[in-house]
C-alpha cells in the first residue's frame, strides 16, 4: 500500500507546476469573458448610469424651476391681495365720505324744505287772516247797516253818507276798543 502511494506520488505532477493546457484554456475563457464585458455589459451599464445621472439632474432642475415658479406665483398673489385690500379700504373710505355728503345734503335740503313749508304756511295764514278780517269787516259793516236801518227805520240812500257813517262808526268802535284795551 505504502509503495503504491509512493509510486502514485512519483507519477503525479507537483501541484505548483502549471499545466500548460489549463493555462491556455483559462486564458482564452477569461479573454472571451472580458471581451463580452467590454463589448456589451460595461457600455450598457455606463449608458444606464449616464441616463440615470441625467434624469436625476433633470429632475432636480425641474424641481428647482417649479419652486421658483411657485414662489413667483406666491409673490404675485400676495401683491394682488395687498392691492385688493387697499382698494377695498379706499372704496370703504369713499363710500363713507359719500354717505356723509349725501347725509349733509339731505339734511340741508330737508331744512330748507321745512323752512319753506313753514314760510309758506305762515304766508297763507297771514293771507287768510287778512281775508277773514276783510270779510268780517265787510260783513260787520253790512250787518251794522242792516241793523241800524232796521233800528232807525230809515234808508240811507246816499252812498257817500252811508259809507261815511259806517266808517265813522267803525272808527268809533276801534277807538272804543282801543280805549277799553288801554283802560284794561
Amino acid at each position, binding site marked *: 500500500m505504502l509503495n503504491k502511494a509512493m509510486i502514485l506520488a512519483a507519477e503525479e505532477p*507537483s501541484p505548483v507546476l502549471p499545466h500548460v493546457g489549463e*493555462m491556455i484554456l483559462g486564458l482564452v*475563457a477569461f479573454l472571451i469573458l472580458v471581451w463580452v*464585458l467590454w463589448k456589451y*455589459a460595461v457600455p450598457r451599464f455606463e449608458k444606464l448610469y449616464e441616463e440615470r445621472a441625467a434624469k436625476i439632474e433633470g429632475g432636480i432642475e425641474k424641481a428647482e424651476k417649479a419652486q421658483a415658479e411657485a414662489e413667483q406665483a406666491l409673490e404675485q398673489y400676495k401683491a394682488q391681495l395687498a392691492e385688493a385690500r387697499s382698494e377695498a379700504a379706499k372704496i370703504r373710505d369713499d363710500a363713507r365720505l359719500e354717505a356723509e355728503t349725501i347725509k349733509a345734503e339731505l339734511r340741508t335740503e330737508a331744512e330748507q324744505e321745512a323752512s319753506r313749508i313753514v314760510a309758506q304756511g305762515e304766508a297763507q295764514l297771514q293771507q287768510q287772516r287778512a281775508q277773514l278780517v276783510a270779510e268780517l269787516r265787510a260783513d260787520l259793516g253790512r250787518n251794522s247797516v242792516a241793523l241800524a236801518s232796521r233800528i232807525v227805520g230809515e234808508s240811507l240812500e246816499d252812498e257817500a253818507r252811508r259809507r261815511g257813517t259806517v266808517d265813522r262808526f267803525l272808527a268809533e268802535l276801534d277807538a272804543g276798543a282801543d280805549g277799553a284795551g288801554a283802560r284794561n
Partner: protein
Amino acid sequence: MGALVSAAGGEFNPPGAGSFNLPPLFGEGTFVTKPMVLVVLSAVIIAAFFLLATRKLSVVPGKFQFAAESVYDFGRNNIAREQIGSQDFRPFIPLILGLFTFVLVNNIFGIIPVVQFPTFSHIGFPLALSLLVVYPVYHIVGMRRHGVGGYLKNQLLPAGVPKPIYLLLTPIEFFQKFLMNPITLAIRVFAAMFAGHLILMVFAMGGEYLLLEAGGVLKAGSAVAFAFAIVLTFVEALIQVIQAYVFAVLSAGYIGAALAADH
C-alpha cells in the same frame, strides 16, 4: 477517488496533492478534465448573467438588474475606481470586473454541491491570469503613459529617497515588480483554494472512514468530523470571496501604481 477505494480496504489513505489530479472526464486518453469544464462554465455563467441583466436596463432597476448592478458597482467603484483613480479607471472596468467575477465564480465552485472543486486550486488558471493578463497589462499601460524610460524610472527609482538607498531599493523594486508580483498574485489564490479544498476533503473523508471502518466509540467521532467539514465550508465560502476580491484589488492596484505619476 483513489483514496476512497483504498479506505474501503480498511486503511485510511489521507487525501493529498494527488487528490487534485482528477482523471479525464470521458475516460482514459481523453484530454478534457473537470477543472477545464468548470473554467469554461464559469465564463459562460458570468457572460450570460451580465448579458441577461443588461438586456433591458431601466433607470429604476428591478430585482435582477439590481443584483447585477450591485456586482458591477462593486467591481467598478469599490475596486477599479478606488485603486486606479477616478481619472483613468474607466478603460479597465471590463478587466477588473472580469477578474473579480471570474475568480469569484471559480472559487465558489469549491463549495457548490456536486461541482465541489475550486478551479483555481490548479495553479495554471491563476497563473494564466496574473502572468499573461495582469502582468503585461500593467507594464504596457505604464510604459504607454510615461514612456519606457519614464516608466522604469518611476518604478525603479522612486522619488524622495536619498541616492545611496537606490543601491538597495532598486533591486528590491525590480525583484518585486518585475519578477514576484505575477507569481505571488497567482500563488495567493492558488494556495488558499488548494489548502481549503484539502482541509474539506480531509474532514469529509476522515468522517466517512470513521463512520464506515472504525469500531464502537470511534464511530461517534465521525459526527465531529462532519460538523467541522460543514463549519469549514462556511469559512471556505468567506475565504473564496475574499480571495477573489484580493485578486481584483491587487491587479487594479498594480495598474494604478503603473499609471501614477509618482510612485
